[in-house]
């Protein structure tokens, strides 16, 4: 039973679950407010933004690349929605205008991703360079369009999307879980998901097997861009405003969350489930520290320490496992 569970989930998910339980146990001793609905409610509200951005980062990393433009893509997509709303009457704009804006935002995000994928695939330039250039371009463009300021004054239902809930589940969390489900199916069961792993391990061998790797790369980055747009819309609804640079601190945290979730930094290996667990652990750590009265910057420092600890543990676990194997 245990063995079967282990085989199904993999050691990564199991290890992270143990870690999660340990973290929760420690905090519930340290603070009697930890195991309360209010605390989990705040985790549930904070998780989606970072979570959706991490999903946007996950796909390129699995394919052996990186997307440094996720935040600026999210910002520019949110600006698209804001622009459509403003043109249609600002606070008086209707739901139709919002939906149109959201659709356009997804297209803008997808287009930004497609461009990165196309340049990477055709020129063979490293995705770090391509996405860095895209990040700077989009950020500059956004700052030019907004003159560096905030855009706000949206209809009331926008804030309701950011803070409302359905059957007691916060709306952003529902969006996030839907995105997780889509990514899970994409990576586990579709051709493109399969190709993403293969491209990440060895793109030339994948091409020799008859896979159109250029097309695969373009699709991977396009989907990453679309996911950024979703994150941008969720952030916009939460803050009830749009500003270029919103969420910039998340950029490297998404990379951290992927590695924490056992994703191979060089591509080819990694699972949605373990990345989701890693995200929950990070969020619980920060809300637990918050309850203990620690300041925000400390919780960032703890995240860093946590990643180092996980790497050391993983190394030790691997060594132990190999020794055990060597003996039998």
């Amino acid at each position, binding site marked *: 039973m245990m063995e079967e569970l282990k085989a199904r989930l993999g050691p990564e998910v199991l290890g992270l679950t143990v870690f999660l339980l340990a973290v929760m146990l420690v905090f519930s001793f340290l603070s009697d407010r930890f195991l309360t609905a209010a605390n989990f409610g705040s985790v549930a509200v904070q998780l989606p933004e970072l979570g959706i951005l991490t999903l946007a980062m996950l796909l390129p990393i699995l394919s052996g690349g990186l997307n440094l433009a996720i935040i600026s893509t999210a910002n520019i997509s949110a600006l698209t929605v804001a622009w459509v709303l403003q043109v249609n009457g600002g606070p008086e704009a209707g739901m139709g205008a919002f939906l149109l804006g959201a659709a356009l935002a997804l297209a803008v995000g997808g287009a930004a991703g497609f461009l990165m994928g196309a340049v990477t695939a055709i020129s063979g330039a490293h995705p770090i360079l391509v996405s860095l250039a895209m990040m700077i371009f989009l950020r500059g463009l956004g700052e030019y369009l907004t003159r560096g300021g905030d855009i706000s004054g949206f209809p009331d239902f926008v804030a309701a999307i950011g803070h409302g809930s359905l059957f007691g589940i916060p709306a952003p969390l529902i969006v996030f879980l839907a995105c997780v489900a889509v990514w899970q199916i994409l990576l586990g*069961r579709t051709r493109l998901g*399969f190709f993403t*792993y293969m491209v990440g391990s060895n793109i030339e*061998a994948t091409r*020799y097997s*008859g896979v159109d790797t250029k097309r695969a790369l373009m699709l991977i980055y396009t989907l990453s861009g679309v996911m950024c747009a979703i994150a941008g819309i969720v952030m916009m609804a939460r803050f009830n405003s749009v500003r270029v640079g919103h969420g910039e601190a998340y950029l490297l945290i998404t990379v951290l969350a992927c590695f924490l979730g056992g994703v191979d930094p060089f591509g*080819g290996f990694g699972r949605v489930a373990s990345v989701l667990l890693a995200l929950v652990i990070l969020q619980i750590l920060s809300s637990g520290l918050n309850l203990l009265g620690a300041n925000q910057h400390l919780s960032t420092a703890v995240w860093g320490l946590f990643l180092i600890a996980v790497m050391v543990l993983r190394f030790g676990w691997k060594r132990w496992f190999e020794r055990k194997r*060597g003996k039998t």
Partner: protein
Amino acid sequence: MAEQAARGAVLAMRGVSKTFGGVKALNDVSFTVRPGEVHCLAGENGSGKSTVIKIATGVYTADPGADIEIAGQSVAAPTPGLARRLGIAVIWQDLALFPEMTVAENIGFEALLGARPKPVARKRMRETAARVLARLGVALDPDAPLRSLPIAKRQIVAIARALVGEARLIFMDEPTASLTQAETDHLLEIVRSLSASGVAVVFVSHRLAEVLEVSSAVTVLRDGRLVGVFPTEGMTQSKLTELMTGQTFDSAVAARDRSAAPPVLELKGLTREGEYADIELTIRKGEILGITGLIGAGRTELGHTLFGMTRPDRGEIRLDGKPVRFRSNGQAIRAGVSYVSEDRLSLGLIQPQSIADNLSLTVLDRLLTAGLISPARKSSLVDHWIRELAVKIGTPADAVATLSGGNQQRIVLAKWLATEPRLLVLDAPTVGVDVGARAGIFAIIRRLAEQGLAILLISDEAPEVYFNADRVLHMAGGRIIGHYDPRATSLAELEQAVYA
């Protein structure tokens, strides 16, 4: 007699055993190399060749009871430093050089080793490098960064580095694995001149032809035991194969007459500038057509065009009588063409990924139900091919890299056979496959031909093509320069034409 041979030897190892976790990797092996001799160490993967090298150079320590003499000095357990001081050097397959440093720095770097920091004498380094390169008769810019050099030149840098340390014996581990024929010839030339100047060379190679050409004696290992030491005078490839594997191979010509069968592939005047020219050939249903020739003859390039990876400049490709023009290898695969690459490690398989994923990569379309990959259909596909080709695996979830060369090649065959091809292009299908496992690969290939598959067999080993193909073409300089029927030609004739 062994005592006599050992006298004056540059390296004499006697009664050497090595146990790894209960497994005897070497069992009472003796190995002697005399000054200036070119000696070959032969054996299949896992026979203990590299363990011998590692014990002689102090990387491993032999089990107690071994007797090792280097340059007449009894050494209980050589350490890497001691072995180097006594004149033993190794050129590993991966060369162990510094790609970002210059030629001179790479050659002179050992002078900088030691506990105390020393200033780097660039001028002396360059002079040393120039002197050693001159001794090898090679013109190389000492200031060129190593990474700008092709692999063959880098190898020469590695040899030069060994000579700076006044090596008396150089081990070369698979030195020709990534060289073209011309580069190999040049390397063998250097080996001969080293030998003439009194430096002994121990050659470890899979390519039996060059082993026999360059060395004067061969020590054969099998399963960690010494089979014997033989002079290469009068030794043949098939005799050596038998010694290495302990099996005799059915080396009868397998050619059949397939001239009545309908043609599957016809090439008419196929040309791609700088690669191959005016290629005319026909492969019929169920026929194995062999193409042999030296590396660089344009064989692999032709294979790439047939597989849709490159486009010909002129000429026509007909598949089942219909002209085809592939714009990608995806189109070629859909039209029924499969290509087994000569480079299994980096192109044939995705080494870190699982056996199951490697096998299903080419036929993902067929595993879909309602647009999603069906795990059940995937595992039944994998099970089917593992059984069909008798692949020895742990579980399908294991990385393909965990398999032996022969079993990996079976996975490559399986992934292409799953696409139900009509034409199978095999580019050097036995590279990195143990001699003993080759027979199994060819048994599969012949069975496929019996079932009606048209096969193009490309190989630089003339005997392989001679014994397995129905007809043989000789390619050189991008052109087909000879047609042979194995039933009407002797192997010696073919080898003479190809290698002379």
